[in-house]
């Protein structure tokens, strides 16, 4: 469903020096699969997500969703996407933001209010629905971001740090929600710094380091090993 093939992205510094953000990165996420992406800050995760959403072109290699170029696929089908920083105009209220995104997601007028109400309840936003985005805490903004990602019931979910800023109650609730989001026709890419969260929710985790795929870890819930792998790659420098 999601395929990144030998993707590289080189930026230029103001002096023209090449900066390799991503180098020869390949990854596939099949339908029914939840794949995690972990890596330290600056590993290239955000660049990769931008390429996958068609917001950035790779310098070389290719990114496809269901065999189509990202923008082509997204313009036809949409994806459920939660960005690390939830950027929603601060003057919008929670309910109006969801109603707007619901229109853009293609929901019919008759469905919008019920779907928005359902997601407001699912993400515990009832007491905030009339608040403006500027009045929300980090955790509440994150839940609003997650709610808008789920509006279109997409076959592709790309969640970038979905539990970032959530309080312990909502972190636990989020884990339940993630298991509900898994379904046979859906591909989920979950980007997170939280190795415990990835180990609980993903089938495989790609560890990214210095722009490269350093290691692909198959998750075995009986033998947690992601932290060890992550440490070996990013701290000890073992390939």
């Amino acid at each position: 469903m999601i395929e990144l093939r030998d993707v590289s992205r080189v930026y230029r510094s103001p002096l023209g020096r090449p900066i390799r953000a991503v180098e020869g990165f390949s990854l596939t996420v099949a339908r029914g699969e939840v794949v995690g992406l972990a890596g330290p800050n600056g590993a290239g995760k955000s660049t990769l997500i931008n390429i996958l959403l068609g917001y950035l072109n790779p310098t070389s290699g290719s990114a496809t969703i269901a065999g189509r170029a990202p923008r082509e696929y997204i313009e036809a089908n949409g994806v459920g996407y939660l960005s690390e920083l939830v950027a929603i105009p601060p003057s919008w209220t929670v309910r109006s933001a969801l109603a707007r995104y619901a229109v853009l997601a293609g929901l019919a007028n008759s469905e919008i209010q019920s779907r928005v109400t359902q997601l407001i309840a699912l993400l515990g936003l009832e007491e905030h629905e009339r608040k403006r985005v500027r009045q929300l805490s980090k955790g509440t903004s994150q839940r609003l971001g997650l709610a808008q990602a789920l509006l279109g019931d997409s076959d592709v979910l790309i969640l970038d740090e979905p539990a970032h800023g959530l309080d312990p109650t909502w972190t636990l609730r989020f884990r339940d929600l993630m298991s509900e989001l898994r379904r046979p026709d859906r591909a989920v890419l979950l980007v997170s710094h939280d190795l415990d969260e990835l180990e609980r929710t993903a089938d495989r985790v790609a560890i990214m380091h210095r722009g490269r795929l350093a290691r692909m870890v198959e998750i075995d819930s009986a033998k947690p090993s992601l932290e060890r792998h992550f440490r070996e790659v990013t701290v000890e420098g073992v390939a």
Partner: protein
Amino acid sequence: MSGRLARYALFQASDYVRERGFPLLLVGALLLLMAIQGAIGSAGVDLGGGELRTLATATVFLELFAPTAVLIAVNGIISGDRKHHYYRLLFSKPISAPRYYAQAFLVSLFGTLVATLLVLVAFGAIVGAIPIWGALHFVLLYFLLFGGVGFLLSAITEYDWIALGVVWSLAWLLRSWFPADGSAFGSVVDVLLPPLQLLAGAAAPLLGGAGIDTHSRLWVVAYGVAAFAAGLLVVRYRPMAS
């Protein structure tokens, strides 16, 4: 499932009213005051007076109002979403970015004409009746030209209003330094830069009912539409993230 972009125009219209429409009305009121004071100062008498004085005041007013209105209406129309990263959630939905911004531009055009109409009605009540259609025609031409260029610049740079000011200034300065019939460079400058000079003296004849010649009108519209189309191409092919 396709996004319902046409339905979203209502939200774009409400954004326009809040973020641009009210400021535009405020600026319109201030300019109206300035225009009235200018008319009083030059005549040395009260507001009562002949139709010619009203038309002269309206001309001054429109020549100040039109560029300011267009600047308010298109400033940040694309660059604002890039700068604040709003594009990230917007364009994860099944919609096309060029269509989204084309629609935003049309909503801005419509909103600006409605705001202009309100300001002109106020002008008519305070100063004296003027030909509304002539005035709207002038603002429409200004929007198509200056707004089209502003749309393109907003697709290219985060500093679109500064860039628009630079283009506007260059269009006047270079044309005065290098007249079109004076040199080959002057001819090139004349073709490349927005033909603002064709609108410079257009307010008076449009208010007077004479209109402007077809060639000038066509060149102004063609230039603005070409800049708008180029802006859409930039939106299509320039990656949103940097």
